[in-house]
């Protein structure tokens, strides 16, 4: 089930608003498609990220994939657990597998992101 409490990008990232912080990660579909995640290159705390721009890398056993930010703003926190246990993204992509948090995010950008139902529909058309 795709959590209803957040929004989704076409590149399979999610963003959940917690007050004035946007928490982000990748979807269950993305972690499943990647396979076992072995390394995450996190953006630096304090750096600016832009919507749909590459801001990190996720490596799995077989390949490396760019991580895009679903929203623009400043990186306020990164999930340091991912340095030693990146596989938590596979086992819990929506909670413990969060990747980075953004402050001063651009609220208007949320409008162009998909809700859970739209993302599920999007997945159906992708296959």
């Amino acid at each position, binding site marked *: 089930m795709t959590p209803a409490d957040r929004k989704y990008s076409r590149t399979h990232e999610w963003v959940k608003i917690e007050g004035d912080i946007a928490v982000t990660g990748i979807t269950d579909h993305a972690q499943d498609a990647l396979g076992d995640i072995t390394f995450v290159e996190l953006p630096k705390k304090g750096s600016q990220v832009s919507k749909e721009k590459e801001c990190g890398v996720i490596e799995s*056993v077989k390949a490396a994939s760019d991580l895009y930010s679903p929203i623009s703003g400043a990186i306020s926190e990164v999930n340091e657990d991912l340095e030693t246990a990146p596989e938590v993204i596979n086992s819990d992509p929506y909670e413990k597998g969060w990747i980075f948090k953004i402050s001063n995010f651009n609220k208007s950008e949320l409008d162009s992101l998909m809700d859970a139902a739209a993302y599920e529909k999007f997945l159906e058309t992708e296959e």
Partner: protein
Amino acid sequence: MHFHTYQNNYQNMKKTVLHEKHLALNARMSPFGGFEMPIQYEGIIKEHNAARNAAAIFDTCHMGEFLIQGAGAVEDLERIVSCSIKDIKIGGCRYGFICNEQGGVIDDQILYRLKENEFFMVVNSATEAGDFKWIREHLSNASSIENLTEQTGKADLQGPAAPKIFSKLMSEPVDEMKFYTFKYNYYRGEKVLTSRTGYTGEIGFEIYCSNDLIKKFWDDCIELGATPAGLGARDTLRLEMGFPLYGHELNQDTNAAESGFTRAIASKNFIGSSAVLDSSKRSRVLTGIVIEGRRAARAGDLVLDSDGNETGYVTSGSFSPTLGIAIAMAYVKPADVGTAVKIKTERGELAAKISEVPFYKGGTVRSDIRKFL
């Protein structure tokens, strides 16, 4: 994220007899050696760990098998394969290279001496047709080669729990099987060829039988607790052992001696021996590299010395599930273990060090089989 999407309807790809089993298990399929093969089922790391800690079963039906026999078989094979043939015991297996005249590797293979003048040869799938042609062209009139590939099913059962599973399925005892030997056994009433060989570094077996029977073997092993494992895990397992993969570490442009597998090369006359046995022709050697951290190097990445000068290239690289770091194999200018190097990847440079192989030293492959029964 953008990621590779797997499919399972590849055009012009052969399928093994276990193909439906892989689809039923929702395997991710990919082309390999002309076949549509399972890369993973539940996950590469899970499957890798099953081989290291329990039992894993691999579909290896795609590989090639030949029967070479006749009064001239030993002499012909001495000329065609780099390892010593005449001293292979009946019941013994031996690894060697088939080289071209320049000392490049046409394939790596394992020979099973069935009788004085009868040999079973196992080769890689991508090179099977070429190997058959090459060998046939180089045999004398005193020997012959038969291609048994189409009618031979094969699977690898590997891991510390493999001997118990295997002995439950085989009619005759397996407790006398020594490393790198084979015996005939009976499974479900049919005669099968079994060997204590494999590509993982753990104790285990390869079995050769009819196509019908290999399907039953697959099911029986899974029922007895073996985890289906794909080519993804097969690759991480062999890489941890420093085993070469044809097409990566070995190809027609790599001198067989540069591989470092000197036990597979005898001081004798064979096709390519003048280049292989001439050490002056060696400017680089196949080496292990350990990387600081989890970030992987990949085939083709350049290796630089600490001054930033190019010293070689990566042939294979991956995160190592058992060691928890990234490892690689590379052809580099000879350097001592511990020498600092850098690997130039698409996404930046990785700090690394020359390492011994195998990277993983805890494997059960040579253990006394009775400990696992």
